[in-house]
């Protein structure tokens, strides 16, 4: 592909990303405009402003929650434009803001209406509940949102296993179901069945429609079409496991090399959780392959998954692929099991100079290294194998080096990095220090969400 063509695609993708960004903000602005149009900005006394802000905070919180659902709905135009992990990061950041706004909404509306009506805070809660069941469910939803946010903060500190956190995180859908009725029945902005009501309905239809279409219906449709199942489980010398999944015509899933799928193995003890794994080989006509290190609880158990187990697949996901390439050559950098998308990209590499950097604590600990060597030879790529205990940067303590020392024309390359988060950060910092432009640095973090 010509380099000008690449540059054009990158520009177009950035434009779409900006448009998406604007749409998220403007959806919030329209909601606030409807609050204004319903007289929600009118105030005659200073305390009215506190009440008004309480209303506005609630509306913005709801818009953010809907944007969050949209961001993790796996709708293709978001996955392609933002990328899976950026969408997940934005999702998480919005969640924190939305929760703070929810607390403001409840706190301000409760305190100010208690003042208006001359009740105690407790009396006011009772009065709200008297308005109807939808206020009771909304109160309950606040408790559930608190639980979900608290566990999300805990997982960041690594006190919870991903699998446990994810199970708790699903409660958020219950919370949303409990909180929505009061917006339509009690919310002064939307209950009037006017334009605001329709706008609000449309937002919910769009966000939850996307979620249903791409997180439920599409995976089930793929399952029905390809009937994927585990064909073989092969232990690798380094301790990782390669799992082959067969299904007639699965290569029509049209993944770009480097992308990943979410895999849900339908066997006792596995089916509850879907795990993100990159393909570790370019798909054959009827088979896919993933390679998994024994890191998470689910990943360790994959060594024992029975052959013949059916698999539900979501994807392909992510923009860790040629889709984001903007330079004539590439540098593919991997640590540990992060080799999987890198190996696949190397296998599909056709165009421009290519360097592959493999980082592991020892040669024996480097997954798929034999395949990588073979492919590097085939494609004329320079392979740099960096083994040894970690030092004070991303390279080994002994023989410490840097991207600039390994690759001469770094500014003519796109850098693709896949590995543990802290290590990836260190490689990114090295690339930035060497003067690589941010849009030429691509990282894959196996995101939560």
């Amino acid at each position, binding site marked *: 592909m010509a380099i000008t063509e690449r540059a054009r695609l990158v520009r177009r993708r950035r434009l779409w990303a900006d448009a998406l960004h604007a749409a998220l903000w*403007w959806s919030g602005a329209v909601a606030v*405009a409807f609050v204004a149009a319903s007289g929600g900005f*009118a105030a005659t006394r200073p305390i009215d402003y506190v009440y008004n802000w309480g209303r506005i905070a609630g509306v913005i919180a709801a818009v953010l929650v809907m944007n969050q659902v949209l961001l993790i709905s796996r709708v293709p135009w978001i996955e392609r434009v933002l990328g899976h992990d950026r969408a997940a990061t934005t999702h998480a950041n919005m969640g924190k803001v939305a929760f703070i706004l929810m607390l403001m909404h409840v706190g301000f509306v409760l305190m100010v209406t208690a003042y208006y009506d001359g009740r105690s805070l407790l009396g006011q809660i009772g009065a709200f509940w008297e308005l109807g069941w939808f206020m009771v469910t909304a109160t309950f939803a606040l408790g559930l949102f608190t639980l979900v946010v608290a566990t999300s903060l805990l997982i960041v500190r690594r006190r919870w296993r991903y699998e446990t956190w994810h199970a708790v995180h699903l409660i958020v859908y219950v919370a949303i179901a409990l909180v929505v009725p009061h917006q339509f029945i009690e919310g002064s902005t939307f209950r009037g069945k006017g334009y605001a009501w329709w706008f609000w309905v449309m937002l919910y239809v769009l966000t939850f429609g996307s979620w249903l279409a791409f997180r439920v219906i599409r995976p089930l449709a793929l399952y029905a079409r390809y009937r994927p199942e585990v064909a073989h489980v092969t232990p690798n010398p380094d301790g990782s496991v390669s799992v082959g999944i067969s299904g007639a015509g699965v290569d029509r899933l049209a993944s770009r090399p480097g992308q990943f799928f979410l895999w849900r193995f339908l066997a006792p003890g596995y089916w509850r959780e879907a795990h993100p794994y990159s393909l570790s080989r370019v798909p054959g006509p009827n088979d896919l392959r993933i390679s998994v290190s024994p890191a998470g609880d689910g990943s360790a158990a994959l060594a024992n998954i029975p052959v013949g187990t059916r698999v539900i697949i979501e994807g392909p996901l992510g923009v860790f692929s040629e889709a984001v390439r903007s330079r004539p050559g590439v540098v593919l950098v991997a640590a540990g099991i992060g080799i999987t998308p890198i190996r696949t990209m190397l296998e599909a590499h056709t165009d421009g100079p290519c360097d592959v950097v493999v980082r592991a604590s020892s040669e024996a600990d480097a997954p798929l290294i034999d395949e990588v060597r073979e492919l590097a030879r085939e494609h004329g790529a320079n392979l740099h194998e960096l083994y040894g205990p970690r030092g004070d940067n991303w390279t080994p303590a002994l023989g410490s080096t840097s991207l600039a020392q390994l690759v001469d024309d770094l500014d003519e390359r796109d850098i693709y990095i896949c590995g543990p988060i802290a290590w990836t950060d260190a490689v990114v910092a090295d690339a930035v220090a060497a003067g690589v432009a941010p849009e030429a640095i691509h990282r894959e973090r196996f995101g939560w969400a």
Partner: protein
Amino acid sequence: MRVAKVAVITGGCAVIVGAGLAAAPEPVKAPTGPDPAPSATAAGAETFDGPPISNPRGTYQARITVVNGEVVDVEAVVAGTSAPESVSINAQAIPEFRTRVLAAQSWDVEAVSGASYTSPAFIESLQGAFSDAGLA
């Protein structure tokens, strides 16, 4: 480029919210206390207050003015709370009730739409006022 993007997004938000504000209804002034009798009342006018009726949206109490067995005025002693929404809803609903009651000469009038808490409470209070006045 980045600055332009932020400017477009922020500007767009300002325009959208501005349009909402432009569509906002005229703000209603909070009542400054019970109205003095607005119309010139004929001699022999009597006023009757219904019972105060409370619900989660506040307390409502009707007052009717009767001259020679004819209801000539309807007002609220209290209606709702001092919340801006309550003030604005009742500022529309109570005059509407006045018109309906004066026309029907009865407490049994249609509820005012958009005032689903005011209507039943105010009508109940009206009923009490009518019954006090011996008008049933």
